[in-house]
């Protein structure tokens, strides 16, 4: 990296927005997952679109790899930059450029915080529907990169369902406009391709999102169960009845205990093996009431010990606080937490949950489950102490076994957190070399030199044979990229 790069970057964004000192850079060495650490050579925080473009073009001229980063709340190590790379932090690009309430859309910069967009839309009777648990901190740009979900995505869809158009800055500094204000793809659906590409295709500089009318009626209920299996079966019963709740979340006993012991205590019954948090909403009060009654009946028939409907907004908020802050509450259990993210067919939930319990017992680990049951999107969380090498090894082995269990059940390795570096090793378990090679080739259409967020998503070694066999046709072997080893000492 050129010694003058830092000063060249400073001339674009100002000296105070370039971080060179190790102590400053360490701040950016992790994301929300404590098992990976990478130290970037430089951190730069552009404050305008024009500054961002100038930064990327400067890096292109120097041939320097870079990693875009939002609030750093990701859970796959996707926003970590290696030595030799520059980290571009986008949190200063935090303006809502347009609020078009009439057409239920907004145009935002990538650093706008998810919850702030919804707050800005609320006076217009609108909301930004995807609501990751980190929504009070995470950014829309990060949500786009990861195709983020959240509890209410069961009814409203994930980020990909809410992005209408994008202005994207490619690694070479080219600006690309894709999609259209109404959401109709302008040509092939490059917006759909970009969302969830984990920063490998470039940086979204302007994001047009769909806003959703706020529900006029909301009912939230808590059902508790004696067993994980019965709770899982209740989920299937609700879905099979043709009712699509706004959210359908499950927490197991370990998670309940962590929440109830914390400042986020929500009144979940401590003796329950599992609770389901079910929310129904809509614009029609009568319809919501009728469906709430139907769901309550289904829950009871499925074995719920009790079904409690929140009687006030305060009670509803309390129930949700417990769920949304569950990851924070687990901080009480140990100093480190691995948040896993896998998806299984809904009907497989009961069996998979039991298997996860068995794995936890075998490895003598504390595994807490809090997850989007309606989607079959599991989040087994393993509490541990990363300073204990033997324990860390057990955590890694158990994580791998949990992933294998989910894949064997017909599932996938990530539903909303992304692959990043954390899941690289699992990609060959769900995609064959041909398909991984295709993805790699697509990435190189956007970024031929693979300078943006290198080493993420595609384990290149897994498609080596395939690419070399087809080197005549433009599918290129880009060379080895290191596996995502769990922890690198700083």
């Amino acid at each position, binding site marked *: 990296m050129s010694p003058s790069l830092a000063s060249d970057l400073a001339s674009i964004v100002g000296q105070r927005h370039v971080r060179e000192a190790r102590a400053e850079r360490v701040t950016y060495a992790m994301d929300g997952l404590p098992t990976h650490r990478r130290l970037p050579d430089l951190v730069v925080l552009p404050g305008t679109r024009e500054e961002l473009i100038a930064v990327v073009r400067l890096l292109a001229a120097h041939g320097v790899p870079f990693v875009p980063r939002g609030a750093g709340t990701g859970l796959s190590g996707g926003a970590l930059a290696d030595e030799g790379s520059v980290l571009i932090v986008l949190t200063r690009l935090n303006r809502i450029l347009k609020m*078009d309430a*009439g057409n239920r859309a907004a145009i935002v910069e990538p650093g706008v915080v998810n919850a702030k967009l919804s707050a800005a839309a609320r006076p217009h009777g609108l909301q930004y529907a995807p609501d990751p648990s980190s929504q009070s901190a995470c950014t829309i740009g990060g949500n786009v990169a990861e*195709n983020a*979900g959240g509890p209410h995505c069961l009814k409203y*869809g994930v980020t*990909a369902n809410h992005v209408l158009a994008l202005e994207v800055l*490619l690694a070479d500094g*080219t600006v*690309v*406009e*894709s999609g*259209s*204000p*109404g*959401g*109709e*793809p*302008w*040509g*092939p*659906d*490059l917006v*759909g*391709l970009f*969302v969830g590409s984990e920063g490998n295709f470039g940086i979204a500089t302007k994001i047009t999102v769909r806003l959703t*009318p706020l529900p006029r009626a909301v009912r939230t209920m808590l059902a508790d169960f004696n067993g994980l299996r019965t709770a899982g079966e209740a989920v299937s019963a609700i*879905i*099979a009845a*043709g009712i699509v709740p706004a959210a359908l979340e499950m927490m197991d006993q370990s998670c309940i205990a962590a929440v109830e012991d914390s400042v986020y205590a929500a009144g979940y019954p401590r003796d329950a093996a599992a609770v389901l948090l079910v929310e129904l909403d*809509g*614009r*029609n*009060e*009568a*319809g919501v009431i*009728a*469906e709430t009654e*139907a769901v309550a009946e289904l829950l009871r028939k499925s074995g719920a010990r009790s079904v409690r409907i929140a009687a006030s907004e305060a009670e509803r908020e309390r129930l949700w606080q417990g769920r949304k802050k569950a990851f924070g509450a687990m901080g009480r259990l140990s100093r480190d937490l691995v948040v896993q993210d896998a*998806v*299984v*067919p*809904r*009907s497989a939930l009961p069996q998979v949950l039991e298997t996860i319990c068995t794995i936890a017992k075998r490895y003598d680990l504390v595994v807490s489950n809090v997850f989007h049951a309606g989607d*079959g*999107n599991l989040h087994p969380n393993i509490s541990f102490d990363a300073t204990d090498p033997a324990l860390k090894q057990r955590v890694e082995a158990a994580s791998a076994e949990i992933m294998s269990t989910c894949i064997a059940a017909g*599932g*996938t390795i*990530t*539903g909303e957190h992304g*692959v990043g570096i954390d*899941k690289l090793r699992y990609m060959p378990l769900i*995609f*064959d070399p041909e*398909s991984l090679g295709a*993805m790699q080739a*697509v*990435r190189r*259409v956007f970024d031929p030199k693979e300078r943006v967020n290198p080493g993420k998503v595609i384990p290149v070694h897994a498609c080596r044979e395939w690419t070399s066999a*087809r080197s005549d046709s*433009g599918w290129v072997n880009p060379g080895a990229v290191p596996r995502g080893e769990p922890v690198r000492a700083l």
Partner: protein
Amino acid sequence: MTILEKVTALLGEGAVLEPSTDRVPRIAPGSPDAVALLLGTAHQEGWRVRIEGAGTWLQSDAPADLALTTRRLDRVPAVEPADLTATAEAGIGLDQLRQQLADRGAWLSIDPPGLAGRTLGSIVATATAGPLRHGFGPIKDHLLGVTFVTGDGRMVQSGGRVMKNVAGYDLTRLQAGGFGAFGVIVLVHLRLRTLPRADVTYLLEGAREDLTQVGEDIAAAGLTPAALELVSPALARRERWVLGVRLAGSPALVAADEAGLRAASGGARFTPLRAEEAHAFWMRLAEGFAVRPVTFRIGGVPSASDELLDLLQHQLGDEWISASPAAGAIRWTGDASIDRLQRLRRTLAGLEVPLTLERAPWPLRGAVGHFGAYREGVGPLVAGLRRTFDPGGALVVATEGS
């Protein structure tokens, strides 16, 4: 050896169908592997291949050395009612698929334009959603994953069979609406819904402006129709414009929306249709777009719907037109010249509204292209993607036009 002889040797006589009217050999591989074998050979031999489904939607007239039809890929390997997912081969007709799903209590909530036997692959490749897009979103929202074969015979899988999946890049969305430019879709993993226990349709006839207002009132009242479609008189086979409202879901929700519809329509008299009448109405509407030579869709913002309808009326006429104003989507069918379409597309581009040509005879779509000119910076990316997935240029698809 002729192409036909080589293909027969490769796939067997069973794969060779009657040639199309332009005498192009029509080949129907019986499995995804056979599709890969055929396209791999085409790539090596330098054959140009056009893609067909059942031949009921896009005209089978692109200049090519052979036509690859997916119609023998008509199996449904999996229907999982408990998970509300299914996996179907691309060549199955939507009518057959619907029936198989209904038998298991499941519903694929799409109603694309075209004849009932239109193939799933055609619907996905062209991303042609119908009125149900209002309530259930565009075609891509119903896809969990696809398997496709590239122009040089590689089989690629994307997505999966579960409700959420962010593993790897979303090549499924690239294929949805790619018109086959990036490969031939052979297998589709679908997101289903429970067969609605209540499904009712109401119609209101009147002047277009009045119906547009009623539609806006319905949306503002917070009703959640499955479809809210404004249909021209000729297409609806009525005297005046028609606003079709379809409510589908649980009986409780539909009953609540029916009450809301009466309240929101401010005295306007909606006519309820009997089940068979409703079926006939929506079916006629879908089929109406497969009859005339040219069909296209445009997508604007909802507030521009009236302006866009006026523009279409002025430039091409509004005899055969259907719109989902709240979704900003309009579909037009009729006859149009290259010049008029290109002029309309330019005008629309100035309004930031894309025009996607869905069907047209080859001379027209070859000139105008399904997409025409792209927005800033997109052209080189699309060209790169095409080279990636079809390095030899075997697949004949008019993406940009000449």
